[in-house]
């Protein structure tokens, strides 16, 4: 059974179409990347899943129930805009959120302390949030979202504002949650994290789905680029759509950027070159990066490296 199932979800704010007929499903143990530029509809979708806002149309199922049933005991959520009660102590805050998720206070306390230990914050458990650094407070908030060992962990732009060390810590927690069987959804517009972590991806533009699938499938949406060092005759090989000379390599050889006709594999071109006796000093296939896929689908302006 899918942990989260979204069908034909639409959300309008007045005349603005924020989410447009979106459908997807997330399975247990899966890390699902929710990619899109600013205003793509990522946060709106997550808010609808949490029943913070209601959809205009469509259907959402969280662990087999409608969002308004609020299975908060099985959900962990880290919002993009983070903040906690400044006068509460770190462990008090974690226990408070744990109890709001129907946890037993003692269990919430012990697991909260375990998380703080893991985040190197055990000695600050009784510090007030207002006395902590921003990074520390963000880790406390992450602990709040993890304290109930959620079956569905939703992280909205979780890496924003974190230093590289804490980004690594967060990646570890995402992988840990996935290993114990939780479905993890995180939204981001930083492709490196998605490339490293995601089992599947969903690309959004202006509220509509542009792609859904694995990283490999995403890369396959763009034709592979081949760098070859050869004689000019390579341009006449079957399957080569264009051969752009980049630089002179000497002895009549040039470095070419080859573009293949759709449906032609790099192996077929290599074979054709051999059959035609075209000498090759270099033949290297370069698959599209997720960044390139993203740019091609949503535009350069939407991406952040």
């Amino acid at each position: 059974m899918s942990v989260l199932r979204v069908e034909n979800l639409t959300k309008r704010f007045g005349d603005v179409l924020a989410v447009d007929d979106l459908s997807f499903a997330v399975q247990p143990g899966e890390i699902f990347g929710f990619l899109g530029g600013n205003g793509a509809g990522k946060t709106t979708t997550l808010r609808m899943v949490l029943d913070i806002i209601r959809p205009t149309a469509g259907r959402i199922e969280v662990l087999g129930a409608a969002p308004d049933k609020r299975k908060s005991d099985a959900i962990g959520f880290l919002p993009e805009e983070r903040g906690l009660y400044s006068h509460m102590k770190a462990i008090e805050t974690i226990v408070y959120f744990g109890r709001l998720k129907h946890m037993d206070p003692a269990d919430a306390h012990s697991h909260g302390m375990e998380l703080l230990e893991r985040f190197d914050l055990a000695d600050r458990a009784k510090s007030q949030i207002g006395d902590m650094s921003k990074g520390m407070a963000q880790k406390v908030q992450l602990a709040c979202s993890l304290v109930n060992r959620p079956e569905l962990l939703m992280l909205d732009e979780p890496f924003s504002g974190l230093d590289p060390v804490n980004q690594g810590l967060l990646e570890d927690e995402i992988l840990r949650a996935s290993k114990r069987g939780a479905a993890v959804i995180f939204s981001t517009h930083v492709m490196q994290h998605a490339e490293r972590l995601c089992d599947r991806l969903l690309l959004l533009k202006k509220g509509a789905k542009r792609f859904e699938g694995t990283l490999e499938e995403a890369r396959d949406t763009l034709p592979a680029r081949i760098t070859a060092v050869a004689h000019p005759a390579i341009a006449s090989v079957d399957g080569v759509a264009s051969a752009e000379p980049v630089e002179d390599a000497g002895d009549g050889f040039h470095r070419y950027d080859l573009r293949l006709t759709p449906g032609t594999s790099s192996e077929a071109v290599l074979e054709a070159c051999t059959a035609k006796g075209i000498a090759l000093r270099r033949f290297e296939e370069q698959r599209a990066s997720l960044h390139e896929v993203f740019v091609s689908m949503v535009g350069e302006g939407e991406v952040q490296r």
Partner: protein
Amino acid sequence: MNRNVLLVAAREFRQIAAMKSFWLTLLLVPVALAIGPLLGSSLDEEEATRVVVLDRAGGSAATALEQRFGFEEDRSVLRSLSRYVRRHGLENADPDAPWAQHDRWYTDADVLTFRQSGGVDAALAQIDKVRPDDTPEFDIPEPEYSFTPAPTALASAQGDELQSRVDALLDGGEDAPDGEAADYVLLVGEGYPADPTIRLWSNDQPRSNFVSQVQEVLTADLRQRLLADQGIPASQAAAIQGAAPAIAVTTPPPGGGAREALLIRSIVPLALSYILMLSLMLSGSWMLQGSVEERSNKLLESLLACIRPEELMQGKLLGALAVGFSMIGVWVGCAIVVAFFTQGEIADMIRPALEPVSSPTAIVAMIYFFVMGYIAVSIIFVAIGAMADSMSEAQGYLMPVLIGILLPITFLLSSLVAGKDGLLVQILTWVPLWTPFAVLARLGMGIEWWEMIGSGILLAGFVALEVVFLGRLFRASLLATGQKPGFKQLMDRFKAPA
């Protein structure tokens, strides 16, 4: 009750209880209420007004004045003693004594009898024999006027010298010894009674009872002399002068007069209404601070991922209610302690004061209107908190609301203190936002049962509408940070969510 609501309420309560301002207010209010009467009584003029009579016509006028004022002081003491005896039922100490008679305005003869039987000291000695241990002692009132002899330098001074010496006397100040300071200086000229002009200097507007008594004494003196000049014997002239009606007076026992009784009966209800207002304003502003913090610290989304907006709102309301009840609990506790350790008049006053609020119906009504009043007003604070990103923005919404709520309540309470139960009071009873204050305050004066039930039902309907519509506003406003809603957006937020 929903577990999440209780968790939110407990957190709200803990947050407010952790504020210094909460504890300061909690303790300052009873301290202020205790200090108020003490300050008031210390401000009361306990010192007798010092009077210097400069009698240049032989001294008989000065003597007559001093005697008369002494006589009136005794009449006043006798009246107070009579009220004390009546309040505590001590007439059996001497049923024939004038202070055991409460059915008349004391005549000169009564005062004379009182004096001849040894005055207040002798009366108290008799009363003490029958006074139970728990009955407080009689507090002898301070005399209103004291007469001091004129300084010798003033005796012969005339014109400017007289004026400057009188000025010095009047400027003498409170701490100056007798003879060197006075509040009133009265000059009976050498030509008196042929020239009946009496001159009075005062460092303030003279009291009318002083002037009228001076006038009465000197008029009697002048008439006595005129009667004597007419050949009427002194004893006959005195009889003519002393002819006065005997006024029989029927009054309720102390604290039992219609107006006095009404005021005493209204003390607790009025105090309840006032406390409701005070605690609402305080807990409301603390709650508002908390809501604004939630918005400005951007933790609403985390909360709403766990609980429904309705649960958050109800938790906040319950938290505010708990804060209000705690404050009232402490204040009422302080009042009970004071009442327990206070003997006499205050305890006597508290008994009738508690009468209108001690029946089961009144207690149920009090709790109902108190709780509903709290919800009706607190929910407005909660909604404002959901709309404002900062305290200054919240103040912008709050000020008109506060004025709209508080101003009519101020009129209402002052009307009821003045014993008026007019149209304004009737209107405010039926306007739900002010119903709790009006009904609570009217419990002492007496409110018709149909009015109480009718306005209570109307209030319940109003609160239900508030919960629906302000609940929508709350939900719609929670995540709309950074957006200042215009009138249209505000109206849209009242509509049911899609």
